[in-house]
């Protein structure tokens, strides 16, 4: 959650705000970013605009959650601070809406759209606005008219016909909202949440210090620290209260299950709908980007699996992640929070995953059918109770020994083979029925042809997919236990470390070719290497190696360290150690990506300037929404051209954001 705001990142945030919310808030935000915390008067002085302008700009920013503000109770002076985290997330709005649409249905997407458009909203006014806009076909500006987007409506399972739905009542909308809160996509907003974390902390600190009028000494210091941390967490968790309250009904109840399977497709009417409204009208809501990021991460991981393993496996993985993300509230858990144990991440069982698996997924495809003797059941069913240590990418040797040592079930036998044998036996005891099922693929096929697969068979096949994922070199899934036909978990940190490298590798390969990538991979595996040994290790010509290395050094991917062998620092008697600094490369790549995004947005501005006349025509209220009928041929074609350019530019920005997400946020 915390990242540096570089110059390019600041520029990007400002451009995003300008694109969506207009020029005045963006100007104020720019100054807030460049000059830090300020009061209204300071802002007016720095920006040399009127106080009235500053206040109006700030009001919009507060409305959209883009600034923190804090009023000192003693001096009643108000300080504003830019919230770059929210500002950057503007770029993800489209993706989040798409994700919500896909996972929770059209209605949920409309609700999130409403909340997003107005920053924060009361439950009552969401319902009103929803009912008012319902029935009207949603503003399908581009979807239907843009040729590049034309296919959207065809292969969209949920876009079929919005009009066919029966009339929606306020109850149902509230139900949908409650569901979204239970998931965590919407969160109740309290004034405290508009204060920056530092302000909250210092306020708590000040409050608690009143108990020690004579100051802290000795042991009290530590006590005080923990009390401050606990109080701050308590304040933060206060907004979780409503979520907890709604969770049993909407996530774990029977209604939730039915809804999940129906995928928001008219699957309305669960028990809660008959009761009183589960939330009060006056509760304020806003979009919780942290949870949205979890959803986006799931989507991204599915894509990765799709690329690496296959489509069906990706679907199974998607179901697994959906089941798992119920237990996750953010991508990168707070390290100071001791309620989360990094060694014991939340797990899901096979049965839970199966509930999330869509009925349309054909789990019988996607895996080859090797003969039984080709499968090593021992290693396939291997259980890893502890997360892999995150030091290297892909060396398997360490984990097993470590796991078996710390395994409480193991009878003090640290021998690796014995440990594996133990697991094997344990599995045989519990799942006698499934091991033959795994090997006897022929039987399964026959039953499939005859009478269709039973639920148990489907579950077994799904399990095979998960095992395939667990076995792959990238740690997509960890088989962490045997309860309920297997427990599964994902070590996101380890996984994303690898995926980050994958992304970096792609960039390096594109820029410096295969040789460059090979050299960097060697450096990454071996650490710092002398430039004399490098050519032999890389099996390359000395000159070529030097050329490539210098090229990469100039681009900032590598660096060299000089170690003189004696006192007079002579070049000939100096070791030159090449090394690859992961952290620096990451920040550098990120900054370059921000820059690219900035350029795309600037380009978009130029393009819209070029087509200013046609755009001002399109903005007219009588033309909006029915461009095709109202505009004449030439004008419409020109408008189409603009839409094409716009979708390309915005599409590229969102692709770049995918990269940023992987490198920074997930």
């Amino acid at each position, binding site marked *: 959650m915390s990242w540096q705001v570089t110059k390019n990142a600041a520029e990007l945030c400002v451009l995003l705000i*300008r694109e*969506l*919310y*207009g*020029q*005045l808030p963006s100007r104020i935000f720019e100054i807030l970013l460049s000059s830090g915390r300020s009061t*209204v*008067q300071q802002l*007016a002085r720095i*920006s*040399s*605009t*009127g*106080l*009235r*302008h500053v*206040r109006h700009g*700030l*009001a919009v920013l*507060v*409305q959209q959650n883009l600034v923190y*503000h804090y009023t000192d109770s003693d001096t009643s002076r*108000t300080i504003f601070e830019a919230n770059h985290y929210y500002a950057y997330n503007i770029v993800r*709005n*489209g993706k989040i*809406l*798409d994700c919500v*649409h896909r996972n929770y249905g059209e209605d949920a*997407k409309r609700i999130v759209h409403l909340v997003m*458009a107005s920053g924060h909203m009361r439950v009552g*006014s969401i319902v009103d606005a929803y009912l008012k806009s319902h029935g009207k076909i949603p*503003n399908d*500006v*581009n*979807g239907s008219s843009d040729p*590049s*987007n034309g296919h*959207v409506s065809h292969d*969209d399972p949920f876009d079929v016909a919005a009009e066919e739905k029966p009339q929606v009542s306020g109850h149902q909308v509230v139900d949908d909202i409650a569901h979204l809160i239970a998931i965590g996509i919407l969160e109740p907003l309290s004034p405290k949440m508009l204060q920056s974390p530092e302000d909250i902390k210092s306020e708590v600190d000040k409050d608690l210090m009143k108990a020690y009028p004579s100051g802290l000494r000795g042991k009290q210091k530590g006590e005080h620290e923990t009390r401050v941390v606990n109080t701050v967490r308590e304040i933060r968790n206060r907004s979780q209260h409503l979520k907890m309250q709604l969770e049993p009904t909407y996530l774990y109840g029977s209604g939730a299950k039915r809804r999940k399977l129906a995928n928001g497709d008219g699957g309305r009417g669960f028990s809660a709908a008959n009761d009183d409204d589960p939330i009060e009208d006056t509760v*304020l809501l806003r979009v919780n980007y942290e949870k949205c990021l979890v959803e986006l991460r799931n989507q991204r991981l599915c894509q990765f699996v799709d690329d690496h393993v296959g489509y069906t496996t990706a679907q199974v993985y998607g179901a697994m992640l959906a089941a798992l993300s119920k237990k996750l509230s953010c991508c990168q858990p707070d390290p100071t929070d001791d309620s989360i144990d990094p060694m014991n991440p939340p797990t899901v069982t096979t049965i839970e995953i199966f509930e999330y698996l869509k009925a349309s997924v054909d789990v019988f495809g996607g895996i080859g059918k090797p003969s039984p003797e080709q499968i090593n059941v021992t290693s396939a069913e291997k259980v890893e109770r502890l997360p892999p240590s995150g030091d290297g990418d892909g060396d398997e040797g360490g984990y097993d020994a470590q796991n078996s040592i710390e395994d409480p079930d193991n009878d003090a036998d640290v021998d690796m083979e014995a440990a594996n044998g133990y697991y094997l036996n344990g599995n045989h005891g519990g799942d006698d029925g499934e091991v033959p099922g795994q090997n006897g693929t022929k039987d399964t096929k026959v039953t499939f042809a005859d009478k269709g697969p039973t639920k148990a068979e489907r579950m077994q096949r799904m399990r095979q997919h998960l095992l395939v994922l667990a076995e792959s070199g990238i740690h997509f899934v960890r088989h962490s236990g045997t309860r309920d036909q297997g427990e599964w978990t994902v070590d996101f940190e380890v996984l994303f470390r690898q995926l980050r490298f994958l992304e970096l590798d792609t960039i390096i390969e594109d820029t*410096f070719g295969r040789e460059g990538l090979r050299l960097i991979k060697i450096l990454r595996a071996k650490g710092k290497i002398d430039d004399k040994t490098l050519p032999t290790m890389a099996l390359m010509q*000395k000159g070529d190696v*030097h*050329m490539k290395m*210098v*090229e990469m050094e100039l681009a900032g991917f590598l660096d060299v360290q000089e170690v003189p062998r004696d006192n*007079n620092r*002579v*070049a000939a008697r100096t070791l030159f150690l090449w090394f690859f600094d992961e952290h620096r490369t990451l920040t550098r790549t990120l900054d370059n990506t921000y820059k690219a995004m900035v350029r795309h947005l*600037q*380009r978009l501005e*130029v393009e819209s300037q070029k087509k*200013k006349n046609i755009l001002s025509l399109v*903005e007219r209220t*009588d033309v909006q929404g029915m461009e095709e009928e109202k505009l004449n041929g030439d004008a419409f074609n020109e408008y189409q051209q603009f839409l094409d350019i*716009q*979708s*390309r530019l*915005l599409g590229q920005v*969102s692709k770049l954001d995918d990269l940023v997400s992987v490198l920074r946020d997930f």
Partner: protein
Amino acid sequence: MSGRGGRGGGRGGRGGARGGRGNLPWDYDPAGVQEQPKERYPKTYKPPRASNFPLSTAEARAVTYFVQLRRDFHNSTLYTHKHLAPDAAGTSSSLTDPVCRAYGQQQANARYGVKSKATVDPFLSVPMYSHKFVHEARTLPDFRGREVHHELFPENLWNTIDGTDDGGKAAAKASKRGLKRKSMAAGGDLEEDDEDDEDVVGRHKRRGPETDAERRRRIEEAAQGKDEEGENLAEEDPEEEEDELSQEDDDFEEDEDGGDYDAEQYFDGGDDDYGDEEGGGESAMDF
């Protein structure tokens, strides 16, 4: 440097002492790198073309949703329009050069046009039928008629979100009538001594830090209606009751100054402004 290098090599007994400048890692062979500008892009630069990577269904949908969201916000009253000053410095070249180079805040501000009588296009400002379909270009967001939640905003923005932020015109008027008022409020921080803020800030200062309960009560009051607040305000400054009262009444009328035709206001508007750019345009910007 090279001499010493040779000596060092000799002392070490190594044959073929290469000078200081031999096969060193930074000895970058320029043959491989284009130093001079060339007609074409360097070979290493292969920009991927957008047409080779069409958007996937999900991406296209995401873009569509973003555009929808943008349009919805642009149609709301909080949006402030982007380009208002076609002739302002910086925008004329922006077609070819999107990066506006503005030196100093003045120039940066000049890019955003002023909406005043001076900048009106005489050919288009005549009321036309089609104008009813066109959104008026806004320089300030309009909070009137919106549901706002006072508890989320700091107090000095409450006037703004209530739609009664008049840019300190009323306060300035008051100060012209009686200078004593100003001197009284200026007792506190100099920075806070700014036009209209003195209302709010000054009042609370006199009262001292308030408790939570008080704050909550005030929030409720503000939510209930502004009339009460107006009365409170008047009560607290008994000596200026007359002034305040008439002023507040003015403020809360729908059409506070009779537009361009308010003869009394006509020349008043210009001299109390904070920055030049608002000068004279003040009344045109109130809507």
